[in-house]
């Protein structure tokens, strides 16, 4: 796909994110906007995946969202890739919806393979799925996404140790390195030190995407990561992003981590992201 088309897709996803959280006056726009390019690249360019959803996902690449609170971007991309009707985005966080506040398999939403929201669990699940692929002689890859603040949860480090120690080299775990969490910057809440050195010390192959909001960089980075799989080490991408990317007043702050825009703010934000593929 041409980069311009992908950028149009990403712009429409940003609109979907903003409109989802605005309508229900809740949700997490900041991290969702920051990861829009990543999801666009992953689902439109990188992964072999089947919108005719099958839970076992044999002979296709799998994705696990560990930081489930950025569900608006996940839902928008799944819908616009054909997993479920785009109109269903209007039900986000409403009663009787398959689009729960945090993603779940419980309501049968196609595209979701495990519930996430309580942080720190996704890497373990991704490792299990990656091991199942090896048992099934399935060469496809497992991708996962994690917040940087999420790495404060200890279970991650159990998983990180396991994956390296057991050569889970069909896994590409991306860290959304935006430096922000609910209570402030990661540096002020709980400094995590040198994440690259930490992953490397645990035995991972670590690469970086310097601008995770530059679509071409994200695509190139993920392609590079694929070439590093199958070599005895799990692959980690430290992907620097800007929380709230694409909406000027939401950028570079944790203020929009878990807050919805009001009517006026929505209008301003949407004006910065003109409709491309049609609103739901």
């Amino acid at each position, binding site marked *: 796909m041409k980069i311009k088309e992908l950028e149009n897709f990403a712009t429409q996803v940003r609109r979907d994110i903003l409109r989802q959280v605005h309508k229900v006056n809740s949700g997490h726009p900041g991290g969702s906007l920051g990861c829009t390019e990543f999801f666009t690249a992953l689902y439109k360019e990188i992964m072999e995946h089947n919108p005719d959803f099958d839970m*076992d996902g044999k002979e296709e690449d799998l994705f696990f969202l560990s930081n489930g609170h950025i569900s608006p971007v996940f839902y928008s991309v799944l819908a616009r890739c054909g997993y479920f009707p785009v109109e269903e985005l209007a039900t986000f966080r409403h009663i009787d919806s398959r689009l729960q506040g945090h993603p779940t398999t419980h309501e049968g939403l196609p595209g979701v393979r495990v*519930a996430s929201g309580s942080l720190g669990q996704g890497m373990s699940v991704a490792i299990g799925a990656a091991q*199942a692929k090896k*048992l099934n002689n399935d060469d496809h890859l497992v991708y996962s996404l994690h917040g940087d603040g999420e790495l404060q949860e200890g279970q991650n480090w159990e*998983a990180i140790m396991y994956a390296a120690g057991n050569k889970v080299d069909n896994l590409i775990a991306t860290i959304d390195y935006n430096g922000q969490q609910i209570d402030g910057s990661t540096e002020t809440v709980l400094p995590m030190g040198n994440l690259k050195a930490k992953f490397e010390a645990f035995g991972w192959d670590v690469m970086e995407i310097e601008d995770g909001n530059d679509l071409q960089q994200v695509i190139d980075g993920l392609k590079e990561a694929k070439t590093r799989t199958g070599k005895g080490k799990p692959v980690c991408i430290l992907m620097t992003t800007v929380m709230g990317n694409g909406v000027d007043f939401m950028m570079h702050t944790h203020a929009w981590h878990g807050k919805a825009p009001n009517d006026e703010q929505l209008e301003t934000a949407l004006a910065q992201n003109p409709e491309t593929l049609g609103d739901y």
Partner: protein
Amino acid sequence: MTEINSVQTTEMTKKIRMKKYTDSGKVDTRSGFGAGLTELGRSNPNVVALCADLVGSLKMQDFIDENPDRFFQVGIAEANMMGMAAGLTIGGKIPFAGTFANFATGRVYDQIRQSIAYSGKNVKICASHSGVTLGEDGATHQILEDIGLMKMLPGMTVINTCDFNQTKAATIAIAEHEGPVYLRFGRPKVANFTPEDQKFEIGKAVNLYEGEDVTIIATGHLVWEAIQAAEELSEKGISAEVINIHTIKPLDEEAIINSVKKTGCVVTAEEHNFLGGLGESVARTLAENHPAPQEFVATKDVFGESGTPAQLMDKYGLNVNVIYDKVLKNLNRKKLF
């Protein structure tokens, strides 16, 4: 044991003839799990196993020797083990994740809740060393809350087996059941008295004795104690119905209600806190359907301590004597009910 006094009636002095259950040799329930897992390793290629550094305690070595590629040693990292087990189901595997009951439940409650139960994953959580009979390691390792924790999770099946044969049969049976299961067993060598060739039906109570005066509902290690209590009660002319409840959830409510309709009172027995255990599930069932006096043989909201299994069963009121006494007490209450 207290003597029978006011409850003694002419009706109760009748001669009661009972089937005799024989112990084919003391063996631990965890070995039943190991034997069942080994059999599954041979019969079901989708079965995989995980363990958090307790292979010897869980008796998993035979499975590992025969299926090294289908075993995942995760180290002392139970949270990661539960998440990995959830992930392994994606792709069609049937993971059996084994560790001590305490580390298989309380330590990883949220991992089980979100990644397994809420996500509806086909994971079998296999918990050894449950209850006080773990023994000398003491209260840090003796969980008495796990049945409650697990039965409160929507969609979770909760099984507590009573001997080697039943544990082996249950282990094999749960592989055929789609959905998360908590399988609870223990460390000590106990009587092995259920049939070797039994068919294990999840959610189906096993009636061990037909009786008329009282229903004794027991699970796990307390089933053998209940049998002994019933035999001693029969010598006093008291006819006790004994039900082996291996599946606490879903509970065989019909079997319980029908029995208590006949006997009019019930004693529940379990190696677990009386808060949250089998007894409470029975009490709710009866309160909704057929209220009856109930006595609880269970621990009373306390932590355990170091000791031999027998000493601990005695000190925490989990044996034949206590069941016997509670039956007598309840027969008195039944008269007043």
